[in-house]
């Protein structure tokens, strides 16, 4: 067993969300709404917050700007971690664990931008972020990387688009019950397969839905959490991981990348694993990422997602239920709630573990596996549990 001194010592005690839509507000406005909601949810006030972690999303406010905009007196920890939520959650948790701060706010605003939304290019408030120099089409990084490796996955394992469709349909079915979600209209398999191709083999339904919104969280010690109003959610294990040969087109194979590193490190630090979890939040900025998390976490063998998802499909509810018990992305994920970059997955896990998910509630849920990130530079994961 690996060293894991922080196990169950840090709790998420507050969450706040603006919900996600195609709106007309600034990232700062969204960040402040989510932040104040999270601090109030935690039963705290501005005077209690002594740390601010402001995720470095494009256009997002810096931590000092969040501090001044919230009218905080002063903070002893502030940082600006790379996007995808686990970098921010780990930074905040480690600050509390180290004693650098006692109540740390994490805030992540996301905006649909001119690089991921055609509509955004027509909005003068967003156009500024766009460079006048056009990139070359023959790029193997970013979105293209997931299209190329999705094609390789299909080639190596003889997979069809069916498992990809199940991830997309599942997300939409779950988003219907989530009032924060941007896309709540059900998606049929026919609609999925007729979706406009963007990067063959991936179509528009294989990619997260660009939207505006913000999520915020408050973390503190487990001891302090016991005195606060919300049922505490403990960080049992959390890690990020990157594989050495991580350049997108140089990845030796699908057998080893960031997800495998994350899974190995989580398993080595956690008393709980997939037989113990009630909730699973595999990130799906692209559908292939969620299929890979499913396989790499060990729910099924590599290349087995097509068979596995067909076997664990609830036809009546048009969604995935592993062993009839573990639903995937109960909030609708990035494909349907909106491109939250993993904040939605984390927030929904917290709400479910508190037993506050209303119509979406998984009865008796005690343990969640949350795995944001793709293959190359932002793979990450956490096991959360109710106290």
């Amino acid at each position, binding site marked *: 067993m690996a060293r894991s001194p922080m196990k169950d010592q840090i709790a998420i005690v507050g969450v706040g969300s603006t919900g996600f839509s195609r709106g007309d507000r600034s990232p700062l406005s969204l960040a402040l709404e989510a932040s104040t909601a999270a601090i109030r949810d935690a039963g705290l006030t501005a005077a209690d917050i002594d740390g601010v972690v402001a995720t470095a999303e494009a256009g997002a406010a810096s931590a000092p700007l969040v501090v001044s905009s919230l009218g905080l007196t002063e903070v002893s920890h502030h940082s600006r971690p790379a996007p995808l939520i686990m970098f921010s959650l780990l930074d905040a948790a480690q600050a509390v664990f180290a004693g650098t701060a006692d109540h740390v706010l994490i805030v992540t605003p996301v905006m649909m931008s001119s690089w991921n939304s055609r509509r955004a290019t027509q909005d003068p408030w967003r156009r500024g972020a766009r460079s006048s*120099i056009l990139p070359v*089409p023959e790029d193997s990084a970013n979105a293209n990387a997931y299209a*190329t490796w999705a094609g390789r996955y299909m080639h190596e394992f003889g997979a069809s688009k069916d498992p990809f469709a199940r991830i997309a349909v599942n997300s939409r079915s779950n988003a219907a019950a989530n009032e924060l979600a941007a896309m709540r209209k059900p998606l049929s398999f026919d609609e999925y397969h007729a979706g406009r191709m963007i990067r*063959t083999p991936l179509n528009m339904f294989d990619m997260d839905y660009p939207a505006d919104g913000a999520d915020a969280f408050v973390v503190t010690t487990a001891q302090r959490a016991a005195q606060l109003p919300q049922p505490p959610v403990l960080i049992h294990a959390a890690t990020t991981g990157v594989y050495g040969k991580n*350049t997108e*087109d*140089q990845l030796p194979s699908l057998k080893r990348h960031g997800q495998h590193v994350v899974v190995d490190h989580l398993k080595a630090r956690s008393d709980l694993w997939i037989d113990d979890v009630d909730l699973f939040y595999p990130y799906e900025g692209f559908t292939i990422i969620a299929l890979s998390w499913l396989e790499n976490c060990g729910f099924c063998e590599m290349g087995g997602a097509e068979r596995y998802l067909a076997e664990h499909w609830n036809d009546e509810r048009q969604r995935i239920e592993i062993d009839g018990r573990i639903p995937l992305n109960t909030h609708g994920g990035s494909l349907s709630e909106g491109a939250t970059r993993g904040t939605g997955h984390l927030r929904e896990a917290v709400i479910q573990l508190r037993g506050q998910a209303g119509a979406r509630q998984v009865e008796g849920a005690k343990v969640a596996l949350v795995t944001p990130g793709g293959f190359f530079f932002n793979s990450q994961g956490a096991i959360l549990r109710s106290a």
Partner: protein
Amino acid sequence: MADPNQSEQKPADGDLSDAELLELFAGHGVYRDNAAQYRGRLDGQLLINRCADCARYHQPPRPMCPNCWSFDVVPTPVSGRGTIHLLMYLHAGPPADGVDYHNGGHPVVVVELEEQEHLRVTGTVHEFGPNEPSIGDAVELDFLDRGGAPIVAFRPSHPTELNHPTKPDQPSLQEHRSQD
């Protein structure tokens, strides 16, 4: 420490200044550590960084060999022969001369070079005629011109052997392509 990229590598084209090189390849992400590779393209060469100490190639170009930490890395011409490892089609993207995102899309390939396992280069493909490029196809280098900037492209290395329909026992990306 002497940097072999700077001291040994004579610009292949002779007269392009660094500023002109950056302007010609605007959008390609040219910087100090890969400039030699772009100069090589102007001379019709695909240059891959190779370590003078341990003989390993690496990609993309770095100032130091990740295998043995030697800074003696030399941009070295390679054959340009390899096999298609990754393949996708773009149906939207930045406007570029000669790039058609419709009619089946613009192919982007990652080719594994014959010089070393897992050593790969990204580009496009052409001259496949009525045949569909497939993962595993043997290809060879053939630069395309885009406004004076050579673009890495590949063509089938044995055109006569490619007169087959897409391999029936393998899933074809073609089935999934839109006709827009």
